[in-house]
């Protein structure tokens, strides 16, 4: 039986009816129709579903939607868009850090959260910081370059 759920998604309040067993991922995609966040495994193994929940990165497939009642959620759509792109998103474009793109929204969210905690990382620290995001296409080399470049860019703007 669906129950009312209130979420603040990308700065907008949403009031929706959601099954008690629904994950935050399924709610974002199926109910709110924000499909930028992807489902790679639904088991917390790949990181493709990463969003910010009250400022912290989470694998949204492992979060029950109702446990996020009244919470702030930021998805890839809220991070930046074509008119106002986030520096991490732009770095991925400039450094070729993407191919098929399916892992990318989750990867960009993880990288952004990581850079907030560690604004001036070494390459090894970046590899650890995105170590929970699986990518099959890129081999990670250009992803790491992009994150390091984004760190530089963000620091220069400070």
């Amino acid at each position, binding site marked *: 039986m669906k129950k009312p759920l209130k979420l603040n998604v990308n700065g907008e309040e949403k009031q929706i009816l959601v099954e008690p067993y629904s994950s935050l991922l399924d709610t974002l995609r199926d109910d709110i129709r924000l499909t930028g966040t*992807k*489902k790679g495994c*639904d088991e917390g193994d*790949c990181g493709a579903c990463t969003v910010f929940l009250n400022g912290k990165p989470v694998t949204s497939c492992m979060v029950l939607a109702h446990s996020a009642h009244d919470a702030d959620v930021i998805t890839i759509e809220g991070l930046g868009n074509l008119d106002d792109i986030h520096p991490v998103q732009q770095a991925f474009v400039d450094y070729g850090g*993407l191919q098929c*793109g399916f892992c990318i*929204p989750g990867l960009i969210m993880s990288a952004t959260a990581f850079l907030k905690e560690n604004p001036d990382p070494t390459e090894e620290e970046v590899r650890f910081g995105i170590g929970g995001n699986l990518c099959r296409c890129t081999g990670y*080399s250009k992803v790491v370059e992009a994150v390091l470049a984004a760190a530089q860019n963000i620091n220069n703007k400070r």
Partner: protein
Amino acid sequence: MVDFKVLEKNLPRIDARDKVTGKAVYASDLYLPGMLMCKLLASTYSHARIISIDTTQAESLQGVRAIITGQDFPEIRFGSGALKDRYIMARDEVFYIGEPVAAVAADDEITAQEALDLIKVVYEALPSVIDPITALTSDAPPVHSNVADYEGYGFTLGNSNVCTLLDSDRGDVDQAFKDADRVFEETYRSQGINQGFLEPMACVTNVEANGRLTVWASTQGPYQIRTQLAGVLDKPLSSIKVIPMELGGGFGAKLRLAFEAFPALLSFKTGRPVKLINSREEVFTLNGPRLPVTNYLKTGVNSDGTIIAREAYSIFDVGAYLGAGPNSGVGHGLGAYNIPNFRLRSFGVYTNKIYVGSYRASGVADMTFAVESHTDSIARQMGFDPWEFRIKNAIKEGDVSVSGARMPKNGLVETLQAVKDRLGLPKRLEEGRGVGIAVCEWRSGSGPSTASISVNEDGTVSLLTGSVDISGSDTSLAAIAAETLGLSLDQVIVAKRDTDLAPFTGPSGGSRIVYSQGTAVHRAAEAVKERLYELAADRLGVQKDALSMSDGRIYIEDDPNQGLSFTQLGTLSINSRSGPIIATASLSNMPYDPVFSTQAAEVMVDKATGQVKVTRYVQAQDVGVAINPMSVEGQLEGGVVQGIGRALTEDMQLDSETGAVKTSSLSTYLMPLAVDLPAIENILVKVPSVDGPFGARAVAEPPGFGPPAAIANAIFDAVGVRVRELPLSGERVLAALAGESIEIRLDVDALKKAEGT
């Protein structure tokens, strides 16, 4: 080196911004009004007769709209190639655990899932065979007892479990083995592999008001889906439209019809759109992976290090149906070397396991592991430096390749030299560390390729090609058009297309897009250029050969102020006597074009645990010309990392009694993460191909071939033991160090007897 305007530049991909903002639309992102969700019921027996399927209880579950079984499909067999050994859904018999036997369409996925549990299937078990070596024996139960009746079957080996046999011979290999100073025999084994794409297979189907079927698919081969769907649904080809969505990785798994027929038939039954998305578990258990391969190699060498004979026998476990080009490795049993006498054999063997699928020329990766480990092993045993031994035997321009084609100009030697220089070979590392090399060889792909380019009234051009955008291919094709016409990349509009709109094209795979599709684009662009010249000549009142083109203008060479910009020409063309400018190109048979790569791994081996860490990885590949270096490097890096996964951690395990997939999650099937890897060093060697657009060669498949052998060879260099089975796990390294490796045996004499050699 030519000074390119668009090529050889790191231009961002045209789809990049859509992907980083989450705007790109994949099949699972589609929501249509009234859409239902489809789930599949899979066989729980490796081989059984279906006695009955009772769906009454499932049908009465609230929210269930329709259920289909194999009997609801026309009784038509299909196959992924010439051999038609399958029904799209099992009718009276199942052949592997995981074979679909029923499909449910319901209001939501949870309801569909619950309905599956209420479907009652009664099976009668039949004898099954799981191991391919056992399947080859004369008293093994046949997987397909009526295989001789299947259209496309053509064997008389007396064992119905052999479904394909590829062979290639030259010279007199038996005499050459007698003549050789040394003869070496080794057997190697590769594991089961899952393609590992991040986007589970998904599709949406809908029957339009006019009765046509539309399929939005996650696919590399929309025309292939269209053809096979028409076949299994017994509907006209022209009644089906396939729209390829953004592809979240395929690597060969998505080249053909997969599960689309099930929601399609459910759409016909319910009159509603139906979506199917595989769970990650289903990606492991329902989608055709790669199955283990055993490669036996025998080589005859003279004391001066010249290889004079090679015999290769491959056992290719096909699974229950001939799903994908097996035996693709056999043509690569010589490696990158010129060997005058050879006998190559590859047996494709049926077993009661999930059917084999494609994966980035995986059969060649399996063979390269064997050949490059074997080459290294021979060099070591004869006291030769592994690099020197390779370059001595390397195939050269003018030599005859396995296929019989003359080897054209190529960069094999350049890649070997580049790696030697970069690493400073020969190189001795400290205790527990080692370096190993591997050479990869492949060919640029061909197949039906079409392109159409038209000029817009503002001088930009629109490019229409049927190929699915696979990892930047749209950007590369646009770049080829732009370079030919002297335009910038953003002046080429690439249409989003479907099977109604664009002419027939081969699938996006097999390393064919840049080489073959790119040639079609290049020819169409050249033809457009001709038409622009004709128009300019007419308007400027001169002959065509008095004109020159640069920077978006066509002008009189002797009087450059007299000219017309592309914008002006575009506007003029619309109402010109010959009408708006449009040109097309179509081809299918590109000439043989080799692709070579040399790779090297530096590793650190922990002798206590056997764990291997890759500390450095270098690759040099002859790309001809780099259409987009950033994109080319991305392909090289991604391929190598897939190869490192194959070398060290990936292992798709199947139950030895039932054939069921045991590793069915990302926590048991381990693909590399960023923390596991060093930065990959790439060297782009550029020996232009004879026929590729601007000299470009194929890029994408060879990078994955090298790591298993490079790492195995590095392990030998580090700790003096050779592991001949993948993955090179800690357990296997430790066993080798203790002298307790399990030897892999293949009874080649029995195989020779069976084929009458």
